[in-house]
């Protein structure tokens, strides 16, 4: 099957909508782990971003193995979807608080992320896709 290393404009549009993404990481024992996340994307489709607190299971997993998968399925049409495999090329706290506020605006229509926990450090993951599959976008 032909795959791409970046998202098409139509796939970028799907990720720009407030659609929940699922991210899969690999546990230390080699088994998979999957959680739902908010997702962001560069306009040119070259990089996908998520924002997560430090210290959780998926963060520990990517510290060992940066290969992940992300799936975004239209909540109103299960046959419109993007699924990709990619590498976490950067994890940074720079701008991460502003970024989670941007995602709160996208997903909640609120200018500030309402569930920030004192002592929790947000991190942006930048993910470079290397196998992108699009259906019905």
């Amino acid at each position: 099957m032909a795959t791409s290393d970046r998202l098409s404009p139509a796939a970028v549009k799907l990720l720009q909508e407030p659609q929940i993404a699922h991210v899969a990481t690999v546990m230390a024992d080699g088994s998979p782990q999957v959680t739902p996340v908010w997702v962001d994307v560069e306009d040119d489709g070259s990089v996908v971003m998520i924002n997560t607190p430090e210290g959780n299971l998926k963060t520990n997993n990517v510290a060992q193995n940066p290969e992940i998968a992300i799936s975004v399925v239209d909540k109103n049409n299960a046959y419109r979807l993007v699924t990709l495999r990619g590498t976490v090329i950067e994890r940074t706290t720079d701008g991460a608080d502003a970024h989670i506020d941007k995602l709160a605006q996208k997903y909640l229509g609120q200018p500030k992320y309402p569930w920030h926990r004192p002592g929790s450090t947000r991190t942006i993951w930048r993910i470079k896709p290397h196998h992108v599959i699009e259906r019905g976008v």
Partner: protein
Amino acid sequence: MTSRPTLTEAQRAFLAEPRFAVLATINADGSPQLTTMWYELQGDEIMMNTKAGRLKDRNMRRDARVALCFEDGYNYLTIAGTVRLIEDQAVAQADIKRLALRYHPREKAEQLARDQFERERRVSLRLTIERISEH
């Protein structure tokens, strides 16, 4: 050997709805792969079904450990476990038809079975639950 976790009644009710499950498997190179699945909770197992030869099928033949995520807005349930593959076509075809009826009206489900599934070699999956996480 540790005892297996059991689903609460609320978790069973959540899974009884015809949601889409997100299934994670492990590729040959050790990286993860994701797909969206129909499923049905059957007793303490989760039944799924796929077309033979798909990437996830090849992955689960090599490594039967999988993770599933079910989300509904800001509630979600993740389940990790091991799948058993059933290749008996009588079972596999009955299961995919049962799933089609769970997710589609009868007429559409029967059409899918007749025009697509019956022409395919199908594989049924039975997931034994080993970890449950709810948020």
